[in-house]
């Protein structure tokens, strides 16, 4: 075996997940991929990559150009999807010098807007829907004070 090119390009978790999906891996049936490939699929489906699409990722890469981050840092952000500034501090080296707190917060907000949240969010959505149905039940006035006098 000869190694022609040891590093032909890095892949985001999303791209690997997309590839495994195109080969037929899914949560219900997993016959077309090998067991070891299925384990990778199981791991990736629980990370932030499970809801991402190609549009999300290309959109994010465009928007993040203004921050002058290294390629590895952009890759880390796409894979981990930190919604809070503390996550940005972990990923970006020398964050205070290069970005500063305000820019890190901006970046964290942009991440939350551009990349979809991982599957752990549905509980919050259900609670919101519950609030809406309760609010819709506006109390009706029992009697009209201006009712016609008998």
């Amino acid at each position, binding site marked *: *075996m000869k*190694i*022609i090119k040891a590093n*032909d390009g890095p892949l985001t978790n999303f791209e*690997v997940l997309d590839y495994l999906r195109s080969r037929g891996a899914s949560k219900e049936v997993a016959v077309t991929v090998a067991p070891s490939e299925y384990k990778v699929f*199981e791991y990736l489906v629980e990370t932030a990559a499970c809801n991402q699409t190609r549009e999300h990722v290309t959109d994010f890469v465009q928007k993040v150009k203004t921050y002058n981050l290294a390629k590895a840092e952009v890759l*880390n952000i796409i894979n981990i999807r930190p919604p809070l500034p*503390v996550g940005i501090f*972990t990923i970006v080296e020398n964050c205070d010098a290069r970005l500063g707190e305000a820019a890190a917060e901006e970046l964290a907000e942009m991440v939350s807007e551009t990349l979809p949240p991982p599957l752990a969010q549905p509980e919050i959505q259900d609670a919101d829907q519950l609030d809406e149905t309760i609010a819709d039940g506006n109390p009706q006035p029992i009697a009209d004070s201006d009712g016609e006098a008998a």
Partner: protein
Amino acid sequence: MFSLSLIEHTLRLPPHLLGLSLEKAVRHELEGLFLDKVIAKLGLCVSVYDIRSINGGFIFPGDGAPTYTVRCRLIMFRPFVGEIIDAKLKDYDENSLRLSLGFFDDICIPPHLLPTPSHFWPDPENRNRRRWVWEYQTDDENQTSGSMFAIDEIGATIRFKVQSISYPSIPLEQPNSSKPFAPMVVTGSIDNDGLGPLSWWE
């Protein structure tokens, strides 16, 4: 975490596979050869991404099967130094924390890369076990005691930063009782803001 590697390999196609189309047969052979195996300096092979070219097809004298020279790209699991990865805590002892990704188990966090100061103390609930505890000290100099954060939940997700990857060479002899040989070991660190069990930072 993942990257593509272009390799060239000469393989012998067993005759019982010649009923399939050439591409399917070659892919089947490649998967059997490389899937879930560690290649030194390239990492753990996860999948065959695509086949770039298949050449040859010669049958050597005395052999009953054709030999092909194939160029293909493999998806390799090869984290780069400085990458942040979420993994589950599998086991811990006084020498290291061991984390697992499901498809890769040999991630090790040595004691000097735990947040300082950390101690391996007896568990107050279970006398027999000892566990790692991080003593978080506030900056105030007058305060001598800090709050304790334990790292002891098996299966909890831990965020770590890759410190280094090593490919130890295959030992010639191994005593029967030692652990199975790990061809690729990822060393991680959780000595930074935002690293460690995710429950600490939510």
